[in-house]
């Protein structure tokens, strides 16, 4: 059973460019969350997708956008890259039970390391 897979594992971009990161959730999971982990920091919540809609969003600018596909996979897009966007981007998947999310267990991928030069 494949866990959460993310691609690519590493990416180098220059300021002002746009980037797309991809995530395939664990088999059977329907909810995907994205986190940004800067060097030496804990992950920070970007947003969550369920039923192809953004359900919750953290304190990130509109340059950060996402999408969820019918097969539950997800993309994170970042426009107009800044040096400060350099970080590890983690995807986590879970399964909602009865529309509620109080008790689901999150499974994380190994992340995409984004470097902005």
């Amino acid at each position: 059973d494949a866990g959460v897979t993310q691609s690519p594992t590493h990416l180098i971009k220059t300021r002002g460019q746009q980037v797309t990161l991809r995530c395939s959730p664990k088999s059977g999971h329907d909810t995907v969350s994205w986190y940004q982990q800067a060097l030496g920091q804990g992950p920070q919540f970007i947003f969550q997708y369920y039923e192809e809609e953004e359900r919750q969003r953290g304190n990130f600018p509109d340059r950060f956008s996402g999408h969820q596909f019918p097969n539950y996979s997800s993309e994170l897009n970042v426009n107009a890259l800044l040096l400060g966007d350099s970080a590890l981007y983690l995807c986590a998947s879970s399964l909602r039970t009865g529309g509620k999310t109080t008790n689901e267990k999150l499974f994380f991928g190994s992340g995409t390391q984004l470097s902005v030069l």
Partner: protein
Amino acid sequence: AQTVTQSQPEMSVQEAETVTLSCTYDTSESDYYLFWYKQPPSRQMILVIRQEAYKQQNATENRFSVNFQKAAKSFSLKISDSQLGDAAMYFCAYRSARLTGANSKLTFGKGITLSVRP
């Protein structure tokens, strides 16, 4: 807003010894979940242990146990019989238990780097 604080950036423990990692949090909610995650060099976040705030009993998973002090808003992790494979970054995290679509968000602390001396 909830906050999670891990004030120790680094800790070291001798193999086979016991180590305790500290975490404090701040919230106005009464029902929530607390977690400890391990992040090895592979970068994947691995759930170590979970505590439900309404439960008095401290959670235990094999060599890992917590000391949950709800009134003090403290949530420490004790690792017994430390092994070389325990070396990693450890993150404390909080999640609300409110029955809304917004309760899946995890709030993490800054983490602590644990090294294990052979």
